[in-house]
């Protein structure tokens, strides 16, 4: 899980696309999710109003995050929960470990939580003798394969059912070649049921926490969060501080958007509200910052914290669909990952804001209207300001920019380049045009630019009175 060095998205994407049939399949799989989202959204006449409302609620809440978090804490404490505050990933992991260790918990089940992925909680607990079993099916598959999720909603979306069959054969003893999804799901259910029954501790994430009620809201399709928290005596909810919303009434807005945006379902199968714990059980809520307050303080990027982790921007992103989630080298991949990650470590993730054509589909699909493409553009400026771009690119762009801001120079060089391109054999012209030319041919160069044509065909016939300084075209 440890990732070191700079992420090279282009190289990872080149490896991914080298398998053309698999790229076709991956693209189609994610596009199918996008189309399901389109159909589900179309069933809601007030969809665009809901998006606007959701965006407004999130921006309002983020503008007074401290107030709402303290309100949430007070309510949660009154409900009988324990509330912990973690500054960063290390502190979060230490708190969770202390909770389990001090209560003699050795076996833990965990429902899907991208925050615990972000914090690297699993290896931290495992190194200290606590067994953690991911109970979301996709995450369990990833855990068995010792891989990171490639998508925040569908962690194993990059795998085909045959590959999952192999993983089950290797780790769960199913017959070789078994790949029927229903059969594999049955095997997983039996396998996980034993872990649920044996677990003393349960970890969940949170899709939302409600300040008004002090409750945690977890949305799943598998019921695994409910099973874990109902059976285990110690429950931990790891919550990013941006997850708080003011009122239960606000939740309705988000629940109508979340599943439709994520999977095209009207609702997730389970929407569980956890408010306190039953007799004999303990509920611990860990509120985690881990860079979020720094991002909140960035004028250009704080709106990224509105994200409700639906994954719609990944499904719609033409780059993500053809490069796979692992190419981003982050817990959260895709467009939202590419605006969050540089805020954590600009040098390491400098490539991510460039892993986009700035087509803007992500911004248009986002249920909370995060201006993702604009933030990617602004991160690009920061990367260059920070000197984290490659030298050749930097020099080439500077020279080009100089030329392009001087029309006379450009037109002179342009005429030269057009002439050269026309006399070179096409192979050499392609070579001369660098990375462009490896896959694409340049258009045949015209003899004359438009400006030259205009000078000779129109300028001389235009009325001449009141002319400014001459250009010397006589």
């Amino acid at each position, binding site marked *: 899980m440890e990732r070191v060095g700079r992420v090279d998205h282009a190289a990872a994407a080149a490896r991914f696309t080298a398998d053309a049939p698999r790229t076709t399949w991956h693209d189609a799989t994610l596009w199918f999710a996008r189309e399901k989202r389109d159909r589900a959204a179309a069933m*809601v006449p007030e969809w665009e109003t809901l998006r606007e409302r959701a965006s407004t609620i999130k921006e309002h809440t983020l503008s007074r995050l401290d107030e709402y978090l303290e309100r949430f804490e007070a309510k949660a404490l009154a409900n009988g929960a324990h509330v912990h505050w973690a500054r960063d990933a290390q502190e979060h992991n230490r708190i969770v470990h202390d909770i389990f260790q001090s209560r003699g918990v050795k076996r833990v089940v965990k429902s899907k939580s991208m925050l615990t992925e972000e914090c690297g909680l699993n290896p931290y607990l495992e190194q200290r003798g606590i067994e953690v079993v991911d109970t979301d099916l996709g995450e369990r598959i990833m855990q068995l394969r010792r891989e990171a999720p490639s998508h925040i909603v569908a962690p194993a979306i990059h795998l085909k059912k045959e590959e999952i069959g192999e993983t089950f054969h290797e780790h769960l003893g199913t017959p070789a070649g078994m790949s029927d999804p229903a059969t594999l799901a049955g095997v997983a259910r039996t396998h996980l049921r034993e872990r649920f029954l044996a677990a003393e501790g349960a970890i969940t994430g949170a899709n939302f926490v409600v300040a008004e009620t002090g409750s945690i809201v977890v949305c799943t399709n598998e019921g695994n969060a409910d099973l874990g928290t109902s059976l285990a005596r110690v429950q931990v909810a790891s919550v990013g501080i941006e997850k708080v919303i003011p009122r239960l009434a606000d939740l309705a807005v988000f629940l109508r958007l979340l599943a439709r945006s994520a999977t095209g379902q009207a609702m997730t199968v389970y929407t569980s509200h956890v408010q306190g714990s039953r007799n004999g059980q303990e509920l611990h809520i860990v509120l985690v910052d881990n860079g979020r307050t720094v991002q909140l303080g960035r004028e250009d990027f704080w709106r990224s914290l509105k994200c409700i982790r639906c994954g719609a921007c990944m499904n719609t992103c033409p780059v993500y669909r053809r490069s796979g989630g692992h190419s981003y080298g982050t817990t959260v991949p895709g467009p939202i990952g590419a605006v969050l990650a540089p805020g954590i470590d600009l040098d390491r993730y400098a490539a991510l804001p460039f892993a986009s054509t700035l087509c803007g589909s992500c911004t248009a699909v986002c249920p909370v209207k995060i201006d993702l493409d604009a933030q990617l553009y602004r991160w690009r400026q920061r990367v260059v300001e920070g000197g984290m771009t490659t030298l050749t690119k930097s020099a080439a762009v500077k020279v080009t920019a100089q030329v392009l801001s001087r029309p006379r120079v450009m037109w002179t060089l342009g005429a030269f380049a057009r002439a050269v391109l026309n006399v070179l054999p096409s192979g050499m012209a392609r070579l001369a045009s660098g990375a462009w030319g490896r896959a694409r041919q340049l258009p045949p160069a015209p003899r004359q630019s438009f400006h030259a044509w205009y000078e000779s065909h129109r300028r001389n016939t235009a009325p001449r009175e009141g002319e400014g300084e001459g250009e010397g075209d006589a």
Partner: protein
Amino acid sequence: MNRSSSAARIALFAPCFVDQFYPNVAIAALEVLERLGVAVDVPLGAACCGQPAANAGFERDGAAALRSVADAFARYERIIVLSGSCATHIRAHADDVGGAGERVAERTTELCAFLHDEIGVAAVAQLGTRFPHRVGIHIGCHALRGLGLASPSELLEPRFNKIRALLETVQGISFAALARPDECCGFGGTFAVGEPAVSSRMGRDRLADYAQGGAEVLVSTDMSCLMHLGGLAAAAHARYAPPTLHVAEVLAGRSP
């Protein structure tokens, strides 16, 4: 720099690559505008809006180019740009460069947006152009989401497409039905160079969609997208290598 002295209040801007590689597009646009009775100037003094540099993260280096655009077009009431992408960049960023930047940003539009919104489809129909071909419309992402030339497929709003509305005035034209009508072609400026694997894969996927729709010609507001798509088809010696035309060329009655 600006020597043009006609009374025209409307300017035509052929951005750098259109000027250098596709002069015929600008000539066709000029012809269409003139036939519709729109007097336009082509002022010297601006070559490029600086978008290639800015999108690569060199906004500061691109600012000089953008400033030259602001200066060159300061006196015009309308600036018609022959690229949805460049028009979007000018509209979004020209107010950052000072001078006439803010005014130029507000007054900048793109050819199809201008024809549809300010000249009107009925007037364009009077051109009486014939183009007996099945056309694959390629709408550039910035023309789509930046300028609002069509309703993006993500948004739940009434469907419209101004490019198609203009082309529907042309006699004999028909349109290829696409599986993904507004998927990005993968050009993306420096993306095409920085991420060549995904960029070319995206382009080939677009070509496959146009092929299944039976598009005989690809038509767009943005020659950069068409340069990418046409270049991919040509380099691969693909069986499917449709000619590419700007909307202006179709309206001007050019053949593919």
